[in-house]
């Protein structure tokens, strides 16, 4: 279709909507925002007649690449270290994708603008595409990669694992609560516009460096739809800004959405990129460098700051704080260490780091070795079963962390932890902002204004609570993280599959009692708790040298 006929066709399809007079569409999902019927345009002029053939062509390319990868035996050259983390990533991501499809009617309910409705409807189709194409990629990995365990139980594991729950915010956050908070600010303005860059562009380039060119094929195809979604989000944001009454809510939501996305996405994608890669060229970008390019420069400086002139209050302090945590607070490295500590309750294997990795980390993140080097040496030393327990239950100077009630990533930058009694329960938060999210933002009143549509934090938010006091072997068995011989574990703290004796089994976990830090915290007296929290915040959590 020519540009001119596209414009004409798009103008024509705007004639399809009408003002109802007999009944108005049910408002299934509310918002505290207000919108005038502003004549906002869909700048991308989305029309299904051109959309379907375009998407089909994109699909054909993806499926062609998949066939090629199988014929060319791509898996001869993929790094297992990389593929193992895909068991986690690809178990999470199809849910946020399909949640984005489900979020579209929420935005449509809230925003009285047919042109934007049309763009959101097209986005719904995109998201169904993304979810199912990613499930199919995972299916291909399961069929052709050496170790299918973990891929084979993917959606069950996603639903019962602590890491799956962290990821689930990036999905449930799109479909629950205030329609604009969820479906516009959290989903489109922050998650899609900022963080899909690291998810769908930065991470695939790392995949390619590790011999996997299918992840880039699929995810770049997905990312090519995102510009249309960004445009949808931008249009709604501008409409919201037009009403003075929305300004405070926008400020609140941008703070929550930015910080939660940082906590969750940087934790996961940072770990995949830094600890899933075998590519240790000194001139390859670290996650911190990628973050500067894709989030700081492309999003914060080029997209967000220009919106200040329209009255949007930008959370500069939180952007800087996220930058600090990634560049100087070792945020990603602390998360990776936590994932590796928790290996027995994962459904993927984690490769020990080597001297080459140490050298690269120290080059990219000066001071890394002093903080983490000895711990990773201990991890390697304890990686094969030999009469000892998994590293989390051996004395290596690592204190298992409290979990953040809000973002559910543990409180890893320990001095930042906030402890508070909220809703009759002692809770821990990784940061002031996560504390604010629970106690101020997700409440029915905000700065003296009723916000009945704002969501609530619900559920059994501390995963460990579910398993407090149980035997570790029973927990792993109940979760289903056991291979088809009924005893060998799916997770392993190494990649060595050639000798069954090197593989951990349920027998190795028997007799280890699992505890919940939150349950224990709530059992403490006030004095005990204060002392515990002070010690926790002061503990550098560094593994001492082995004498």
């Amino acid at each position, binding site marked *: 279709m020519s540009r001119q006929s596209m414009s004409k*066709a798009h103008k024509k*399809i705007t*004639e399809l909507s009408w003002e109802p007079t*007999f009944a108005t569409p*049910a408002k*299934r*999902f509310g918002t505290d925002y207000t919108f005038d019927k502003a004549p906002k345009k869909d700048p991308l002029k989305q029309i*299904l*007649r051109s959309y*379907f053939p375009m998407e*089909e062509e994109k699909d054909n390319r993806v499926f062609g690449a998949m066939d090629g990868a199988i014929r060319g*035996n791509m*898996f001869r*050259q*993929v*790094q*297992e270290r990389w*593929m193992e983390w895909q068991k986690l990533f690809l178990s999470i991501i*199809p*849910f946020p994708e399909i949640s984005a*499809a489900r979020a*579209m*009617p929420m935005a*449509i309910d809230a925003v009285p603008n047919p042109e934007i409705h049309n763009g959101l409807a097209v986005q719904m*189709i995109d998201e*169904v595409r993304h979810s199912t194409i990613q*499930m*199919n990629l995972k299916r291909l990995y*399961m*069929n052709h*990669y*050496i*170790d*299918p*365990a973990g891929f*084979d*139980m993917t*959606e069950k594991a996603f*639903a019962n694992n602590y890491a799956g*729950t962290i990821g*689930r915010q990036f999905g*449930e956050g799109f*479909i*629950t*609560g205030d329609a604009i908070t969820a479906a516009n600010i959290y989903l489109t303005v922050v998650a899609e516009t900022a963080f899909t860059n690291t998810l769908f562009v930065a991470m695939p380039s790392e995949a390619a460096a590790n011999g996997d060119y299918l992840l880039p094929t699929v995810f770049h195809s997905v990312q090519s739809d995102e510009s249309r979604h960004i445009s949808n989000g931008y249009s709604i944001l501008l409409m919201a800004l037009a009403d003075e009454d929305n300004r405070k809510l926008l400020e609140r939501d941008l703070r929550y959405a930015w910080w939660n996305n940082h906590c969750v996405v940087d934790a996961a994608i940072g770990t995949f990129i830094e600890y899933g890669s*075998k*590519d240790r060229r000194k001139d390859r970008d670290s996650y911190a460098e990628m973050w500067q390019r894709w989030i700081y420069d492309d999003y914060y400086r080029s997209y967000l700051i220009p919106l200040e002139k329209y009255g949007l209050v930008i959370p500069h302090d939180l952007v800087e704080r996220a930058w600090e945590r990634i560049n100087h607070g070792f945020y990603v490295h602390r998360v990776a260490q936590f994932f590796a500590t928790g290996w027995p309750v994962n459904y993927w294997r984690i490769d020990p780091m080597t001297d080459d990795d140490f050298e690269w980390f120290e080059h990219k993140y000066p001071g890394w070795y002093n903080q983490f080097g000895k711990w990773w040496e201990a991890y390697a030393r304890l990686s094969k079963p030999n009469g000892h327990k998994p590293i989390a239950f051996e004395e290596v100077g690592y204190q298992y962390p409290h979990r953040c009630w809000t973002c559910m990533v543990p409180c890893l930058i320990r001095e930042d932890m906030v402890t508070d009694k909220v809703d009759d329960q002692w809770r821990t938060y990784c940061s002031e902002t996560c504390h604010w999210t629970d106690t101020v933002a997700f409440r029915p009143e905000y700065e003296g204004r009723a916000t*009945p549509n704002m*969501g*609530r*934090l*619900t*559920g059994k*938010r501390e995963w460990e609570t579910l398993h407090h006091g149980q035997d570790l072997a029973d927990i792993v068995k109940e979760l289903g993280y056991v*291979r*088809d*011989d009924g005893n*060998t574990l799916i997770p392993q703290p190494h990649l060595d*599959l050639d000798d*069954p004796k090197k593989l951990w089994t349920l027998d190795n976990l028997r007799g280890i009692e699992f505890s919940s830090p939150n349950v224990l915290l709530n059992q403490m007296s006030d004095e005990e708790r204060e002392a515990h929290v002070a010690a926790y915040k002061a503990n550098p959590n560094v593994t001492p040298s082995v004498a």
Partner: protein
Amino acid sequence: MASPTTERSFPKPEFTGAEAGLLEFPSSKSRTYNYFKPAKLRSTMYEDVTVDVQPDPDRHLTQGWIYGFGDGPGGYPKEWTALRSTDWHTFLDPNEEWEQTILRNNANVVRQIQLNLNNAKKAGAYKNWSTSWTRFVEKHLGAWMHAEHGLGMHVFLSEQRSAPTNMINNAIAVNSTHKLRFAQDLALYNLDLSESDIDFDGKIHRQTWHGDPVWQGVRENVERLTAIGDWAESLFAANVIFESLVGVLFRSHLVMQVAARNGDYVTPALVGAGENDYDRDQRYTRVLFRMLTADENHGEHNKALLSEWLSRWVPLSVRAAHELQPIWSQPHEKVMTFADSWAAAADGFRTFLADLDLPEPKELSL
């Protein structure tokens, strides 16, 4: 002479031997998704990419939904419909829609339509239309595109947030896609006709939809469908009742029958695509509601409630259909009477209800 460039490094390929089958160890052959029971011996592609992507506390979700609404639980509460199921996850879309089928089917349709319209333009196909047929297309086919759009945008698209499983929500999302695409197909056809060398008013469809008395029953029915809060009620009232009594009546038993006799071979190809969409959408609707009426624990409750919904929605659609009656006499060549068309549509509806094990509502004969 080439200028010197900065030296770049590249990742080096390494043979890792990470392909399937190279080693045997526990689970080395576990190459199927093992967390759901497929309908047949082996799972289909559709099941693999669809089942359990939307988690459920009744299945594997252990921590529950971690966000709630201000006034109730989050996620996908089963209480968002008054119908009940022993296991909502039993429903599988008989069309097995996933991204590849959605894009291929719809791309094929729009390509075929585009070819038809290009050829029609080249052949001067519209020049042979009688004036009465031209008026019929500009007004009545034009008005119908609004009904399709309203259903796509404000009934089906809205419902696909609310059902308790991914399989149901995806089937409804595809249904929404069909409606939106078909409405746009009709709108762009209308544009082509406006730009052709026949006397065609490309704007009158809005006036017809808004004000022509024969269309107000249909418009009311569509608008009332958009206002239903219970997702299953709106799906039932739209796909079982409105589509059978009004949609199929207009598309299949009027336009498809009379267009050719009025010298129009273009419109049936377009409207036929819409009918084909509905065939697919009717298939999943039948399987879903059949599952609910046959439910061993809740079948009777569901049948009673669906009968109530029939009593509520059938009169509206019957009236909408009958108010359309005058347009049967507008084309120059009259192939079918309204009575014949209505009888055919009502028969189809009865068959649909029989498939669902639901009695014929007395309101059908009003």
